[in-house]
Each structure stands twice: as C-alpha cells, then as structure tokens.
C-alpha cells in the first residue's frame, strides 16, 4: 500500500472481498471433522441447559414471567456464542499464526493481514452461528424458544460471534503462548459468563457492579437475545446493537494492527 502514512494505516485496516477465501479455507478444514466437532462443542452448553434449567429451575421456578428453563436457555445461547467464537479465534487462530505458519503462507499471495484477520473473525462467528443453530433446535424441542424467532436470533448470534471473535484475535495477536489464554478466560470471558445476565438478571446486582457490567458486550447480547428468542418486545434495540458493533469494529481494528506488527517483521 502506498501514500501518506496515516492513509496507509487506515487503508490497511480494511479487508477486501478476498477474506472469503480465508473463511472458505477454514470451512474446508472444519468439514472434515464437522460431526465430531459439533458434538464436542454442543456438549457443554447442553449440560448447562439441562442441569441448570431442570435442576436449578425447580428451586427458582420463574424469573419474572419467564420459566427458568426458558430464561436460562437464551442466556446459554448468548454465552455459547461468546465461548465458541473465542475458542476458535484463540486456539485455532494462534495455531495457524504461529505453529502452522498459515498466515505467512497466505501473505505470500494477494491476501493482506486485514483479509486474513477478517477471515478468522468471520469463521469464528460462523462457528458461533453453527452451534447457536444447534442449541436453538434443542431448546426449541424443550419448549425454551419460540420457533418463529429463529430469523431474528441467528443474526444476533452471528453479530455476537463477530464481536467476540475480533476481541479474541486481539489476545491471539499478543499472546506469547497457549498458557497466556488462561488470563483472558479468567479475567474476561468467565466473569462475563457469570455476571452479564446469563443466569440471573443484571438488575439483581449492586448498582456499582451493574454499571460495570453494563459496559461488557455479553450483557448486550443477552439483553437482545432473551426477548427476541421468546418473541417478546425488545427495549433499546439500537443501543444494544450499537455497543456490540462498536466492540466488533474496535477489536477488529486493533487485531489487524497487532497481527501486522507481529508477523510482518
């Protein structure tokens, strides 16, 4: 890329349509073990759904008007979109960037760093979408989702996957090794899993904690998915969407800059 430095910098953040080829490559690899990986990635969310929905549900009964099974199912749908995209972009992305030198091989073609990172993030979000679709099916059978809502649910899951995939790529870009990811799980994704309204309303937290939690992206994914999945009216749609989109865009920008700094030396 040519031109003044600032222009090169900004243009370097914009992927071309070629990112689809990167996405396609990941899909090609995934297809070989699709069934096994789907079964593996569905196990945990379904255990949470059944264990908490039935187990805890007997004591809790309902939250507001909502049966606890229904309540927790949409929470699991949201947190699973976070976890799936995070795992893919962290473990898959890091392995491809370091051990397998896949990124380097891609850069020896017309692909740019922005294309490669966009392909990773798009693929991470696709994984969220696939397992989100499977969870939706199971939840629907259990009566936890209203069938008609699928067309609204899946785009939110995809958007969530984009945001969390991009955030995870930032961590991938700066990580010295696999052990480093534990910090991210302990300090970022697990707290979100526990405090962002997956299992109980954010409103039940102390006010200070509430405002902290309000800054986190998963809070907004849950706030959208829970009513949407049950065909209820959603409050502040634009606001929640804007927060998630902002996380996705900022994280993507930072991830591209950091991956570039790391591999073009």
């Amino acid at each position, binding site marked *: *890329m*040519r031109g003044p430095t600032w222009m090169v910098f900004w243009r*370097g953040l914009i992927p*071309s349509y*070629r990112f689809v*080829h*990167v996405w*396609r*490559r990941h899909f*090609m*690899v995934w297809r070989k073990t699709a069934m096994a990986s789907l079964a593996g990635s569905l196990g945990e969310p379904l255990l949470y759904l059944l264990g908490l929905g039935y187990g805890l549900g007997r004591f809790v009964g309902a939250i507001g008007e909502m049966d606890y099974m229904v309540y927790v199912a949409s929470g699991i749908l949201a947190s699973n979109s976070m976890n799936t995209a995070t795992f893919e972009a962290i473990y898959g992305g890091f392995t491809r960037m370091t051990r*397998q*030198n*896949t990124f*380097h*091989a*891609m*850069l*020896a*073609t*017309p*692909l*740019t*760093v922005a294309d490669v990172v966009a392909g990773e993030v798009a693929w991470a979000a696709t994984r969220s979408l696939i397992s989100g679709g499977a969870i939706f099916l199971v939840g629907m059978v259990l009566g936890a989702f209203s069938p008609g809502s699928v067309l609204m649910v899946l785009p939110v899951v995809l958007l969530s996957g984009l945001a969390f995939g991009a955030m995870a790529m930032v961590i991938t870009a700066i990580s010295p090794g696999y052990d480093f990811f534990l910090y991210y799980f302990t300090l970022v994704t697990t707290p979100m899993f526990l405090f962002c309204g997956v299992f109980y309303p954010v409103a039940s937290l102390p006010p200070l904690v509430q405002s902290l939690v309000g800054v986190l992206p998963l809070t907004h994914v849950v706030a959208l998915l829970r009513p949407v999945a049950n065909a209820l009216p959603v409050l502040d749609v634009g606001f929640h969407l804007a927060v998630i989109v902002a996380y996705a865009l900022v994280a993507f920008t930072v991830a591209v800059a950091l991956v570039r700094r790391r591999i*073009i*030396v």
Partner: protein
Amino acid sequence: MHPTIIVASNLTKRYGETVVVDGIDFEVGQGECFGFLGPNGAGKSTTMRMIMGLTPRDGGRLEVFGRDVVPEDSVLAAQMGIVPQDNNLDVDLEVGENLDVYCRYFGLSAREREEKIEQLLAFAQLSDRRYTPVTKLSGGMMRRLVIARALVAQPKMVILDEPTTGLDPQARHLIWQRLAKLRETGVTLLLTTHYMEEAARLCDRLLILNRGCILDQGSPEDLISRHVEPEVLEIWNRDGMPSLEDFADLPGRKEQVGDTLTIHGFQLETVRQLVVQRAGYACLLRPANLEDVFLRLTGHDLREGL
C-alpha cells in the same frame, strides 16, 4: 540486455541494532536466473523476503516490475511465486487441497482451478498423491509441492529460498529440470542455495553475500576467473591432515580446507606427479569451481552464529 525487473540500491535491513542487510545494490533482468550465495546468516533470506514483500526494508530503494516494494501489495503479490525457506504448507489439508486454496487466494475460477491443480500435480510428479494429507509426504515431495504451489497464478517471477536443501539427488535433478523448464517459458528466477553445483548449473548471474554485504557479483565463469586460479589439486592422506610444511617446496597457492590441502595454480599436472611420488598421499587434479570462489571469498571457518 533484457528489461530490468528488480532494482535494489543501498537496500538495508536492521533487526534491532544488528544490520542484517547492509546497503546492497543489484539489478535483475527479465528472464534471468539470478542466484544469491552466502554463508548461514549472511542475509540471503532477508533479502529475498524484502523482494517478496514479506519484510519491510529499513533503507534504500527496491523496485520490482517498476513498482516500489511495500508489504501487502496485492498487485505485486499476484505476479510473484514464492517458495519460502521453510515449507509452510497447510498441514490441515491434503495435497490437492493445498493447491486448491492457493488458487482461491489468487482468485482463480473453479474451472481454472481444476485445470491448474491437475497440471501442477503432474509438474511436481504428485498426481498419485492428490488425496494424501500433506503431513504424510516425504521432505522431497513437500518441497515439490511448495514449488508447484508457487506457480498457481502463472507468475512472471519465481523466488525460491533454498529450493533443494535436504533433497536426494533424484529429487534435486527433478527440481532442476522443472526450473529449467520454467526458464524456457521466460519466467525470471531468483534463488538462494548452498549447493555450488546448483548455482553454477542454473544461474546466469550470482551474487555472493557475507554478513549483509556483497562480496562480488557476476556470471559463474566470471567469478571463477576473477577470484581463483583455473586448476586445483586436492591432497589428503588417510591418517590426519597433510600439513602445509610438507608441501612448502611446491609452487602454487595453498589452502587448508577441513582435512584437505588444496593447491591452486596454472597447469598443475607436473605438481600432481610430484605429489603422487610422495608415499601416503592421495590427490585429485580438477578445474576450479564456484566452491573454491565461495571458500576464498567468505573464508574457511564455520560462520554459523556470527
């Protein structure tokens, strides 16, 4: 002279405080086969990577196809085939799939891809391995696949960093033959190698690099006539090294290379006969070659880690 397609002047690369490529100048013409020689760590790969657009330079000028080289230039990348020093094949995929994804990265259509894959598998003699996972290939097969992969988009120039290192003689000959075939079609070749025979056989012109600086450049014949005498007598014995003193009385320039003593000069046949008369020594008279030039210019000691 063919049109110039690579112009490098005062090309410089630093890693931290270390100057790895130290202001080098060279030009490569279209259709040429241009080789980089030099000891480990001389800066060959770094120079190649700058030309490939995988590493930004720190100073000087570098133009390829008349374009200033910067990393991530899709237009330049589309015209170059790249064979990196380490095979970065896609280990999650099969042989054919490796070519397929590369075709996609270069934007080939489905029909072009199928045709290309078959043609390149044949070119690399891997047609019967199309569905083999890459991890199950031998080193030579991987190298052939990497070279095939570099050719998916009909590049005008192919850059090969040690294309034949670690290959057996058959595999090496096959690759030489393939590279010669490419040259016939007018493709410019840029390569590095540690095999002087390979350099002499393939390259029109060579550049010898040492610690980031150019020692000399020219055709293999020019380099030989410029730096070494035309004949070499190699002398060795079974137990230990022949010492310089034992042969001090003979004419010619003497060098110690490992366990062998070499005498460099003109018309050494008479010298050879003198050596043969001395008990315990074996010797071989041969014409001077690039290896003699290389050793003379870069010194005889192991350079690794310097």
